[in-house]
């Protein structure tokens, strides 16, 4: 027991634990919609693209978190707009904008004399550096996003399952789409705090994909994804503390272990595996 409690005597570990709990739940829920809507690539794109926002924030001495969030949301909405107005697929729009944005980020960073530690924190994640202010943003944004998803649950499900028919029956598809993109953007920037920009996709995709192995019901899927997301985050955090490895890596690897376990054991897929001769 003291293995669990000992680290918590440090205030930075307390903040880290609370932060990862919220981030683990938030990424699992948003990640479920991301997987079902086939938006995995956008999480990756926004995470990398947000680098420019962080670099800009650093250059102008703004709060990195807030500038990163604002930048990522704008980028997400712009991706949606480009997809809608220019004749390009969503994947292509993401590809164009995230690489451009990342190039901008690299250009800005390369003008700086020192490769700052703050920025490397964002690249690789540094859950132990969460300040009380950061924690406030994490909790606030998580609660708002989860509230929006709860209030408009059936509308988001319809939009995710069948965009065209949702529009026909009067669901404001376009607004839901942009809201989803913005929520993914905020989630990505917030999660980057724990796992880093590079591994953000791990938290977004792996817990939901693991849950997918176990059930055919969306509600159960969401619940399991949250459980897996929380487990990955918390276990990963402790592993990071005791093994002295980067928190992003330990969280992502824990999530991956859960996926492997689910893939091999889940009853829902057993028949499929048998038919494949596995």
């Amino acid at each position, binding site marked *: 027991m003291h293995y669990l409690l000992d680290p918590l005597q440090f205030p930075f570990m307390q903040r880290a634990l609370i932060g990862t709990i919220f981030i683990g739940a938030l990424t699992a829920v948003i990640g479920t919609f991301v997987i079902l809507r086939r938006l995995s690539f956008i999480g990756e794109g926004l995470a990398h693209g947000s680098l420019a926002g962080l670099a800009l924030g650093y250059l102008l001495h703004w709060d990195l978190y807030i500038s990163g969030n604002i930048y990522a949301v704008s980028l997400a909405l712009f991706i949606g707009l480009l997809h809608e107005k220019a004749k390009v697929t969503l994947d292509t729009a993401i590809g164009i904008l995230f690489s451009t944005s990342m190039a901008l980020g690299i250009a800005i960073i390369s003008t700086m004399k020192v490769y700052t530690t703050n920025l490397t924190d964002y690249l690789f994640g540094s859950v132990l550096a969460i300040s009380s202010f950061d924690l406030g943003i994490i909790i606030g944004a998580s609660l708002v996003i989860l509230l929006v998803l709860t209030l408009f649950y059936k509308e988001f499900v319809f939009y995710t*399952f069948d965009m065209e028919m949702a529009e026909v029956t009067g669901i404001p598809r376009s607004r839901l789409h942009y809201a989803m993109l913005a929520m993914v953007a905020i989630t990505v920037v917030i999660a980057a705090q724990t796992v880093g920009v590079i591994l953000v996709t791990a938290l977004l995709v792996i817990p939901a994909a693991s849950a997918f192995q176990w059930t*055919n019901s*969306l509600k159960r899927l969401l619940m399991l994804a949250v459980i897996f997301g929380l487990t990955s985050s918390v276990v990963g955090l402790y592993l990071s503390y005791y093994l002295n490895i980067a928190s992003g890596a330990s969280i992502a690897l824990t999530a991956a272990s859960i996926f492997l376990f689910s893939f091999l054991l889940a009853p829902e897929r057993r028949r499929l595996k048998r038919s494949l001769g596995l």
Partner: protein
Amino acid sequence: MAHAIEFRDFSLSYGKTPVLEQIDLGIPSGTCIAIIGPNGSGKTSLLKSIVGLNKPDTGTIKVQGHPPTRAWRRRIQVGYVPQIKSIDKEFPISVYEVVMLGRTAHIGYFRYPGKKDRLIVEDSLRRVNMLHLADRPIGHLSGGQQQRVFIARALAQESKILLLDEPATGLDIPTQQSIYELLDELHGDGITTVTTTHDLLALEFHHFDQVLCLNRRVIAFGPPEKVLIPPILSQTFSGLPWPTRLSFSYAQ
């Protein structure tokens, strides 16, 4: 008789390609309409325009007197069953939940389905003989069964107008017949139905009040015995061969 759907000088193009030209058409309430025409004649585009998915270049459409995109705000729902398309087989949603989606606008924001919604969903599933599969994931059903579920979803919208895009294509004969029987039932309930088909034999299976021959323009619109005659069919299908058995039976 009031018109359920009315087109006035309606034209539509995708980029520079004209799809529908100068459509002037009034579909009377409560009638059972078939739209025939070859592939690419604009049948699907016409249906999508009625539900507001296509914006016209010129002209107007009115659904029960209102433009389509506004129509839903007034709770005038148009039931639309698109062509069979491949859906995400792994999407975690049951047949029952898919049909309940049809109730979304009725339920309204910040609310959950009530007893009335559940009864309507069950009744809709019963009408397409799918109630026994209500708990199955939609992806585990065959194409024909999925099609019936999507018809049930449209029924659950309780709309006075139902559009079916090639509902019989790819289905076996008994399933096709059950869909046409359902059309008859809906007709009895006073619901306007518009069904597209590229298969003229469908017109032998089922009696439609009026047939619209479409090939980018309205070639003809009227009762089947007046419309299904060789010169009109020949013009509709641009000289392509149509099933001679059919033209023969109507010619007699």
